[in-house]
């Protein structure tokens, strides 16, 4: 159990490292397209962190939150409650992925329009130009 906890802490820690790198990309890279790529990576990392919160260390292994026995017997329900992961964060993340796709599409068309008007996607050049 000690080794499993250590490996799972590596997962959580690397998610925070990924969040830091993606935020660095959003704030410091000049290209608007690179900012969009970093934003997708950041939203994916936050979604993964939400799913990690719903995970549980079950012995011997966790099972997906799907009831396969209909009607469920009480013995099966006891097994399900003790070993299944939390389905609520998964439902929320499924919504967040689809909304994130819509937001990224909007940002892409904004970037395309900026390129058509100003002729560049570099934010430093765009901020210097007028009209």
């Amino acid at each position, binding site marked *: 159990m000690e080794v499993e906890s250590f490996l799972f802490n590596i997962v959580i820690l690397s998610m925070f490292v990924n969040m830091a790198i993606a935020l*660095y990309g959003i704030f410091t890279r000049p*290209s608007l397209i690179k900012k969009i*790529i970093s934003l997708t990576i950041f939203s994916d990392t936050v979604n993964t962190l939400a*799913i990690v919160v719903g995970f549980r260390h079950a012995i011997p292994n966790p099972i997906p939150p799907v009831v396969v026995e209909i009607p469920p017997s009480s013995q099966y329900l006891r097994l399900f409650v003790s070993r299944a992961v939390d389905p609520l964060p998964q439902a929320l993340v499924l919504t967040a992925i689809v909304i994130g796709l819509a937001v990224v599409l909007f940002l892409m068309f904004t970037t395309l329009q900026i390129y058509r008007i100003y002729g560049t996607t570099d934010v430093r050049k765009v901020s210097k130009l007028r009209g």
Partner: protein
Amino acid sequence: MLYYLLMALSSLLSIPAIYLAVEERDLVKAVIFSAVQSTLYAFLYYLLMAPDIFLTYIPVGVGLYTALILILIKKTERYESD
């Protein structure tokens, strides 16, 4: 044990993929590194017992994002300036 090992491995491998995607000057290569990161995250979702997210994230993260950003790069500029 092997289960958690694969989980830690896929999340650790996503760190260099994200770093290369952020640092790369050629935007097409950056999109490809981003797709590698999406594949590793999809595998991580599968290991975290979220099969519905896995089935949604493979077409959205690996397919749609990559294709849309490639179309955007084709219509605008490919290289990021210093």
